């Protein structure tokens, strides 16, 4: 019995040896295999709001315009035949009218022709669907100066109302209001903005799913918005499973969806009657593998052409033969230590005593600028960039990252200086803090090593300044972390923001505006400060159409952030891409990263 077991075993091993040899030589030039992490959230361009999904959408659906090979300052026409500019007068009425002549002879993958009506339908569908946590807020701002369909509803009906509860009549009113913004002439689509909004083009550009153009007929057939005015309630804010386009696609793009095995892989094949030259790669497979060692071996054995590699594992792929490692790509992304000016102390263990008695911190701990500066000077930025990020990044210069308008390589930043930190801590709370000391807990969401390292660093250095200073670092599940953030209970927390579109507005609002995605969580005192000093600047910045003027305004905002030490602008990472050296035609697009546009690639 045992002998036969052993025999079986050796047999298997022999077999495996063979099949390894067999597996090696299989990787054909017509197929591109990319291995990523994470999961694809949804294939509905107006629903998805994560890089993994965006990549797929980006290869199947198309927008009106696109960037010139990742150059975020030059646009090229795509489904539009011309990029609107002041010069060609397609941007008119000092920046409140945008006209897009629609390309003819373009067909969707199901054969239907593209019409201006499809374009209008697509945008309205996005506006109506506007799911919570979705991307659509980005165009509500330019088109209606609102943040969401809810805002529009309030505007129109004059009262708060959940769009899901709209009656047919109300729905028609709201719809009329929405529809005014988008006008179709015989062969072009015109957008009417209430006021000038410079980033508009950067928002609807290719790479941003919410500008993707759907086939009206097909979408309705799938059970999507029926194009009627009275049906907003039925189609707005669907859950993922209610969304008919969750797992099916039909775009004008170079690739079409073949199969999506959620959490495992997605397969796309070349669209042979694409309106441009068909792509050179016949088949694209995007595999999602969270286990790094697996991704690594697929790269090593050439099973994968492009592989996602976390920074910390770069050392494992450098000088792997047949593999190209490209690092230092500017990532429009900002990692920030958020300080809560007014911490809710009730039932909040992280502030310990909740008083300025040496055994905790008062709720308004961080509204003292000297405390904030103390912390800012206690952060070892160089060590963080060099060790934790392994050199792939730079210290943040303020809310606005490189290369966006307002970023200056030479602008003032805080540096690691414990003496300065000491000075400020001594001044804080009129010296009381220095005498009494404090204890607080910094949270991070478990699994995020970079954030933990940042927290550990602060603990390590601040505690050196004064033995009475005590910092605990505690990891909590993402669920509780979210809870803390929303409930204004976090003390100092590290979060990050990646670009939705290439404009400083996309960074200053979330970080420093009084009601920004993160700014809004920084407490009363901050809100007051921001309403007075920041919000007006932001307002000016977004309504001006003169680049020079905007540049200047955003520099002021950067300075505000520096002078008032509003947050710890810790790092702007650089991206890296790892691929087999037989991959050709690759270029970097900071907005789409880490996704690829396979149309331009070949093997």
């Amino acid at each position, binding site marked *: 019995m045992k002998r036969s077991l052993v025999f079986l075993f050796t047999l298997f091993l022999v077999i495996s040896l063979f099949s390894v040899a067999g597996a090696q030589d299989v990787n054909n030039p017509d197929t591109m295999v990319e291995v990523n992490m994470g999961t694809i959230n949804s294939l509905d361009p107006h629903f998805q709001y994560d890089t993994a999904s965006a990549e797929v959408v980006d290869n199947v659906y198309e927008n009106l315009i696109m960037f010139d090979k990742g150059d975020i300052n030059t646009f090229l026409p795509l489904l539009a035949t011309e990029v609107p500019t002041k010069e060609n007068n397609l941007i008119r009425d000092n920046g409140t009218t945008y006209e897009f002549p629609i390309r003819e002879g373009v067909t969707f993958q199901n054969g239907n022709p593209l019409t201006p009506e499809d374009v209008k339908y697509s945008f309205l569908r996005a506006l109506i669907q506007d799911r919570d946590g979705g991307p659509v807020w980005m165009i509500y701002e330019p088109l209606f100066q609102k943040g969401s369909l809810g805002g529009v509803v309030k505007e129109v009906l004059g009262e708060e109302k959940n769009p899901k509860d709209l009656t047919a009549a109300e729905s028609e009113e709201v719809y009329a209001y929405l529809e005014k913004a988008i006008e179709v002439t015989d062969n072009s689509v015109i957008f009417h903005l209430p006021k000038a909004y410079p980033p508009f083009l950067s928002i609807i550009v290719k790479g941003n799913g919410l500008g993707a153009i759907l086939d009206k007929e097909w979408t309705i057939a799938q059970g999507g918005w029926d194009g009627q005015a009275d049906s907003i309630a039925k189609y707005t804010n669907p859950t993922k499973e209610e969304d008919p386009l969750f797992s099916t696609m039909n775009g004008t793009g170079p690739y079409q969806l073949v199969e999506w095995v959620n959490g495992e892989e997605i397969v796309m094949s070349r669209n042979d009657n694409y309106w441009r030259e068909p792509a050179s790669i016949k088949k694209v497979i995007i595999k999602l593998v969270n286990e*790094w*060692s697996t991704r*690594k*071996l697929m790269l090593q054995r050439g099973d994968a052409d492009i592989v996602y590699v976390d*920074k*910390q*594992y770069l*050392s*494992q*792929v*450098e*000088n*792997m*033969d047949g593999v190209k490692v490209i690092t230092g790509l500017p990532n429009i992304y900002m990692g920030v230590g958020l300080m809560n000016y007014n911490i809710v102390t009730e039932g909040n263990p992280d502030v310990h005593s909740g008083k300025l008695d040496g055994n905790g911190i008062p709720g308004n701990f961080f509204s003292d600028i000297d405390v904030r500066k103390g912390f800012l000077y206690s952060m*070892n930025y160089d*060590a*963080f960039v060099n*060790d*934790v990020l*392994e050199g792939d990044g730079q210290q943040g210069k303020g809310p606005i990252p490189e290369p966006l308008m307002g970023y200056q390589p030479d602008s003032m930043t805080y540096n690691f200086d414990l003496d300065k930190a000491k000075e400020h801590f001594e001044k804080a709370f009129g010296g009381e803090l220095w005498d009494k000391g404090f204890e607080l807990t910094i949270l991070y969401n*478990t*699994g995020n*090593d970079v954030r*933990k*390292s940042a927290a*550990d*660093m602060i603990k*390590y250095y601040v505690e050196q300044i004064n033995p009475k200073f*005590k910092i*605990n670092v*505690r*990891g*909590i*599940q993402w*669920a*509780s972390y979210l809870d803390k953030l929303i409930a204004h209970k976090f003390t100092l927390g590290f979060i990050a923001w990646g670009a939705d579109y290439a404009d400083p507005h996309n960074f200053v609002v979330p970080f420093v505006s009084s009601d920004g995605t993160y700014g809004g969580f920084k407490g009363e005192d901050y809100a007051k400060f921001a309403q007075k000093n920041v919000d007006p600047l932001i307002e000016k910045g977004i309504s001006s159409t003169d680049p020079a003027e905007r540049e200047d305004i955003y520099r002021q905002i950067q300075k505000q952030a520096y002078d008032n030490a509003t947050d710890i602008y810790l790092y702007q990472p650089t991206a890296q891409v790892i691929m087999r050296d037989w991959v050709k035609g690759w270029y970097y697009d900071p907005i789409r990263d880490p996704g690829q546009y396979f149309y331009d690639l070949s093997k």
Partner: protein
Amino acid sequence: MEWQEVLKRLIQNKISLLGILIILFFVILAVFAPFIAPPRDADEPYMIPRAGWTIEPQAPSNEHIFGTTESQYDIFYGIVWGTRTAFRIGLIVVGISSSFGIILGTIAAYYGGWIDELLMRITDIFMSIPFIIATIVLVTILGQGITNVMIALITFSWMSTARLMRSQVLSVKEDEFVQAAIALGANDFRIIFRHIILNTIFPVVIQASMRMGSMVITASTLSFLGVGAPEGYADWGQMISFARNWILGIEGDPLHYWYTLVIPGIAITLFCLSWNLIGDAFRDILDPKLN
């Protein structure tokens, strides 16, 4: 068989002796941890000090004789203090869950009827959820941390003891001496304790010693899956999870980071091995079938 006799045999038996020696070694490690590996921050000695901020593990060197894991956690320190963690988890979890199981099992068997039925159905329910899954859920809900891990483990590990105890008691219950005691009108508690538990405890003890190992393994598994001990906490399972992304080494040297896996791996395996060796010998000594 008497305790002294059992212990004597345990010492005589080479296998269990080996087990006992290993455990003694770990005990020493645990007791003298503060001297073997002095903590940097006395308030939280279980947090492994970081030897720098880089992510890549560092090979064994003079100041880090076992090297460091991902994010520079000193492996030696982690092993030493991890021993304490292991003992804490093992003893507390097994202790509490076993006593809980003993009580429930005894009650069920002694009173029988609907009480028995009810308790056994509840046991069934708890047993129908895969142990590891149940604990993952509970820890995720309670939040990371050794205490919560222990709570979760206890909540879902008392059933086997309860069942074992029940069957034991059922068999003893009919014995003359118990019947006699009942006839003499001794009160239930006294009967249960003096006459039943003391006469049925051995198999439970065997099971307990076997579970010492498996509980520590499960706890480590939770850490390994990222829901157990918080990052940087001295816990063997977590140190292994740190190794997870490095086991394939670097180009041309697949074993480059061997120490991140092998060293904690040996620690945890030896620990469990020792308990199982003892439990094994224990069983042979006490199993009437085998004598």
